[in-house]
């Protein structure tokens, strides 16, 4: 049992923290990044590439640093603290993991080098959080597949050079078998998209595929074999989001405590009121519980047992969701009016935390999943 970072990991934390502080230390800069067409500044992305952050989780053979889940956790926590808006989780963590586990590694050097951005298009209208719920059809035609259908809320979809698309090659809409992952060049004929900002200052897109021809070679992980690959990648994305949420919650708790110490009412700092002190303590307790589960998630991502891995990730997502909601709501409450203004940072932490709860399965979704499975979580 050991909760310490290695020397390399400490160095990583320090250097990522420094880079993000330089880019995000002044909150006005973030507002500037959001004005770019896809909601982030390509110059910052290029800096990430330069610093090796984009190549971190990939094998050395593919131009990466061979980092594992703990390294991803470190980066994501710093991004949470900084409220970074670049599609790191979408492209590097999620799409990267699909390519890794689907053994479709040709694109990885481009992603690792910052030359390409990939986005996973898996949500459809009505599919909610079920990865198996796929209607978008892929029909074999000679040496190609032809994709027909729509994908929704594709994270990083506006900037994406490539889409990883979940499509049905056989069976019915909700079957576990018969779902195939395709790597689709965003420039392919028939691909169209509508990008938009999300509540938390990130970006997503609605993407439609009208008779898009994709060569058989672009199948990821085998025809009909997409679900376990996507599920594993999504588990990595959830673990990464848990870490990001911890970074954001940590910063938000600190910010709130500082605010209470400086804000004066009735002639005293409002930090002197016990009701507010105890509320802050409850926020801290929720933060530490979340931190524990983010660590648990990161250390469970590589579990070879897919069922155990899924349970650990779901349990972590539930705790993070509950903690994020409590800390987010209380931080706004304790700040008072300034907390609900667009100019002040606290509200933006709250918005990001709220969106994290809604991504890849909300708290109720994961709680029900664990309950239905009768999972043994702690005993």
């Amino acid at each position, binding site marked *: 049992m050991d909760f310490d970072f290695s020397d390399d990991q400490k160095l990583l934390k320090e250097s990522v923290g420094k880079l993000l502080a330089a880019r995000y230390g002044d909150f006005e800069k973030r507002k500037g990044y959001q004005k770019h067409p896809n909601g982030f500044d390509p110059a910052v992305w290029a800096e990430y590439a330069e610093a090796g952050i984009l190549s971190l989780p990939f094998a050395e053979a593919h131009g990466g640093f061979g980092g594992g889940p703990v390294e991803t956790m470190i980066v994501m926590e710093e991004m949470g603290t900084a409220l970074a808006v670049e599609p790191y989780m979408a492209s590097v963590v999620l799409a990267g993991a699909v390519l890794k586990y689907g053994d479709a590694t040709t694109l990885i050097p481009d992603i690792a080098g910052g030359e390409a951005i990939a986005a996973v298009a898996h949500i459809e209208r009505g599919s909610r959080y079920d990865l198996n719920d796929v209607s978008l059809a892929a029909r074999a035609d000679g040496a190609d597949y032809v994709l027909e259908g729509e994908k929704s809320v594709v994270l990083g979809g506006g900037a994406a050079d490539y889409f990883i698309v979940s499509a049905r090659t056989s069976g019915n809409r909700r079957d576990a078998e018969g779902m195939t992952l395709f790597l689709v060049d965003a420039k392919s004929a028939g691909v169209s998209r509508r990008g938009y900002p999300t509540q938390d200052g990130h970006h997503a897109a609605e993407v439609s595929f009208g008779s898009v021809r994709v060569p058989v070679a672009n199948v990821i992980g085998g025809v009909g074999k997409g679900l376990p690959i996507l599920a594993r990648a999504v588990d990595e994305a959830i673990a990464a989001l848990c870490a990001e949420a911890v970074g954001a919650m940590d910063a938000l708790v600190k910010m709130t405590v500082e605010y209470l110490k400086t804000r004066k009412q009735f002639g005293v700092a409002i930090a002197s009121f016990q009701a507010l002190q*105890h509320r*802050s303590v409850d926020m801290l307790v929720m933060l530490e519980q979340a931190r524990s589960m983010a660590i648990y998630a990161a250390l469970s991502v590589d579990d070879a047992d897919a069922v155990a891995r899924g349970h650990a990730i779901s349990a972590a997502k539930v705790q993070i969701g509950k903690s994020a909601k409590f800390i987010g709501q209380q931080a706004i409450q304790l700040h008072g009016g300034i907390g609900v203004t667009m100019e002040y940072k606290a509200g933006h932490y709250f918005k990001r935390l709220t969106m994290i709860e809604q991504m890849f399965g909300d708290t109720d979704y994961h709680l029900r999943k664990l*309950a239905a499975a009768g999972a043994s979580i702690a005993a």
Partner: protein
Amino acid sequence: MDLNLSAEEMAFRDEIRAFIAAELSPETREKLILGREIGKQDFVDWQRKLNAKGWAVPHWPVEWGGKNWGPMQEYIFLDELQQAPAPSPLQFNCSMVGPVIATFGSEAQKKKFLAPTANLDIWWCQGFSEPGAGSDLAGLKTTARREGDFYIINGQKTWTTLAQYADWIFVLARTNPQAEKKQQGISFILVDMKTPGVSVRPIQLIDGGREVNEVWFDEVKVPVENLVGQENKGWDYAKYLLTNERMGIARIGISKQRIRRIKELAKIERYGDTQLLDQPWFREKLASVEIELKALEITQLRVVAEARKRGKHGEVDPNSSILKIKGSELQQATTELMMDVVGPYVLPFTESMDDEDRTNEPPVGPDYAASAGPTYFNWRKISIYGGSNEIQRNIIAKAILGF
């Protein structure tokens, strides 16, 4: 980063597990599982077995029977006892008065008390709380007046757990009523319960049990050699004592054992046409508690890992207040789940859960149902004792958040 136990730690855990399986009386274990009160003899028999193995007082100085375990070993040991379930070594002896005597006591006191305290030949109770001094312990009023070679003690202690079994009591009493601050002028004194003027009156709690008492002191004459350390320094020793009860404070092993038990019983209990355990609402409640418990277990391990880095005798980690708050809430949550399990059979009330008072009357409903209500009622105490959860919040507010 790694959440797994090392091979050595696993072997250590297995050794403890095997010892408990071989040595713990099945009757004692059964009582703990069913939530019946365990009697004096259960405690004494078990602690003597632990002591013979060298495990009753592992955290004491080595010359008085300690094992020099690290924080991780101490945690594994307590967790295994809690999960078995087995009684923990009597905390008044092993975590409270023993370490104080070993650290601050005279050589004569060490020789007289430590070995029998470890072996539970002497049963100690704690004379700290008073009717007007609960969370604000330093407000205590019991006095010890010096007369020649004796102290004369007058006053009243309360919430004295298991005083009915006790041979000796360690008392905080005011020896200098004129002291400038209320924390000054308090002394730590050992009193034989058989001394004339000591009387014990049981307090019945809402579950019907009588585990706590009032202890009255009326002109109780105690030889001065029973003063521990220096006169008027008792507050320091009391603070030291309270740092010793931190390691197992979250009692995660107990909650784990109860959740396993709840799952077993929820398979037996019917709900409509299914087992209770097949009900989605029940499973969701259970999963909610389990998730928080898993999180707390890792939080606990993080605190243990910090203690390991800091070395054994560092200051109390204020993060252990997080463990107290969350650990007590989760123990209480298991009592609510247990009431869900037994349903209407939570209603019948039996005056005493004490094994010796049981009659031949068969219980109403299943045997596991009788303790569900009483345990729910009784365990409200967990968020009150040992520094109420509100006091823990004050500690965190000051020590961690800097308010």
